[in-house]
């Protein structure tokens, strides 16, 4: 399976934050949810893919091309949707189309206006006056109009109402029906990932905590609950995000480590949301009396 996006050993250090050896890949024809708490490095990774951030080491390949030396060729075939609109707010859709058209060899004006109509976007209103959902749709319409093979979305659903979120996810699902395409979308709304992602990469403190298929992730982890004294000594070290209460505890555990678990402890499949919460608690080992 050919990878549309491949990141190997990406390192990027700022004064107060760094990406450490980030590696993951997205095969063609799939959607990857790129999740992690705020400040985990999702946006820095995306900025590195776009060559907006200068990487310290590592290699990023998009369509098999190098993200630094072939950045222009990559951007011809890439669509990007940020969490906020990056277009001139005083212009309307027609004027925006006029502005962007010359930059892309494969720009298709008919397709653009067809999408604008399909997304119910007014073409005579200033885009700055659009709702957040409309702005997201406009950025997607732009990506689709120059035949982007990979769409990268940075927190596209944050701040959207449920209806707009649903519409956006439907658009992405429709887009990925063409198996030559790919979608990478960063979010901390895990319900979106549960709904449309095939692959998941979890970033935590600038490191990749998990990368693989969504099913692998949810089948690999379970939430374990019970009385603290029932935890076998060998198992204690394997608990992730241990959270003790007066009457018991809960923690995340790899399903591989469930063998030999005493009957007094209960476990259930972990959701992505729960996995993220336990990862965040990992260093804390919270204890509430």
């Amino acid at each position, binding site marked *: 399976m050919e990878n549309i996006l491949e990141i190997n050993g990406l390192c990027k250090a700022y004064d107060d934050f760094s990406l450490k050896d980030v590696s993951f890949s997205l095969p063609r024809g799939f959607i990857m949810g790129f999740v992690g708490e705020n400040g985990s490095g999702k946006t820095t990774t995306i*900025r590195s893919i*776009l*060559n*907006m*951030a*200068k990487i310290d080491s590592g290699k990023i390949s998009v369509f098999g091309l190098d993200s630094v030396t072939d950045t*222009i*060729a*990559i*951007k*011809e075939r*890439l669509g*990007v949707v*940020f969490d*906020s*609109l*990056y*277009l*001139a*707010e*005083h*212009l309307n859709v027609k*004027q925006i189309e*006029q*502005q962007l058209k*010359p*930059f*892309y060899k494969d720009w298709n004006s008919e397709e653009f206006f067809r999408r604008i109509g399909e997304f119910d976007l007014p073409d005579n209103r200033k885009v*700055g006056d659009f709702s957040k959902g409309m702005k997201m749709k406009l950025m997607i319409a732009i990506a689709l109009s120059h035949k982007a093979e990979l769409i990268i979305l940075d927190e596209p659903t944050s701040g959207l109402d449920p209806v707009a979120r649903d519409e956006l996810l439907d658009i992405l699902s429709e887009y990925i029906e063409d198996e030559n395409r790919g979608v990478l979308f960063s979010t901390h709304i895990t319900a979106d990932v549960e709904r449309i992602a095939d692959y998941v990469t979890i970033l935590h403190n600038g490191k990749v905590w998990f990368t693989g298929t969504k099913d692998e992730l949810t089948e690999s982890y379970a939430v374990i609950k019970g009385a603290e004294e029932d935890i076998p000594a060998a198992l204690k070290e394997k608990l992730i995000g241990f959270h003790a209460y007066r009457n018991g505890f809960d923690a995340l555990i790899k399903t591989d480590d469930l063998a030999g678990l005493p009957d007094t402890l209960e476990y259930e499949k972990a959701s992505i949301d729960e996995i993220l919460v336990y990862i965040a608690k990992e260093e804390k080992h919270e204890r509430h009396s």
Partner: protein
Amino acid sequence: MKDILKIMRFDYLTARPLAISPAVIFVVLAFALSLFFAPLICSYITFSAMVFVIPLQGVADKSGFNKLYGTLPVKRGNITRARFLYIFLVHFAAEMLELVLAVTAMSLKLYRVLPNQNGEMMQMVRESFEDTTLTLLMIIGVFTVSCLIFSYMEMMGQIHGRENELKIILITLGSLSALAFGILTLAQREIIPTLKLPSLPATTAGKVTLGVILNIVMLGICLLFGEITARKLTKREL
């Protein structure tokens, strides 16, 4: 070069909706006043050039163009270079329009249709239509100064940040004034020889050559400022 032209077009389309009304007002005003009262007034058209440059940075900041620049298939350095060439070209277009208008005004001499031809005021108006070369050189001078100021401000703003732009420009102007004052004072006390300003060329051909040279020099300065800024900015992240 294609990249630069695309970005210049992008800048023009960004500014156009905001600039077109004030620009038209300046042009109409300049046409009316220069045709009837003084050809030199056509240099008001330079304001039209200014209104095509002034909104750009505000729009870029408000609309998050840094992100857009990060997604466009264009080299970052060319985005910067294009802005400086754009500043030159809008000023150059205004200058050309001013020259055509001034020549037209001086040929038509429409002040002759105005009433009270023997009045004192009309005498001044008549004189303003006589000195062709000075008027044309003044137009080129206004173009040069405005273009220089705008391209310098753009360079300072992009390199040091818009918030520091005014401070740096004031420091620069202060330093230049102090230098000029120093030189003049030293020359007055005969510590250094008195500087003589070069006189204008006597022939029309000489004056035309001077005008062309000023335009070429201004283009060179804009390209140089653009190159300096592009090199500084490519080291930074978007």
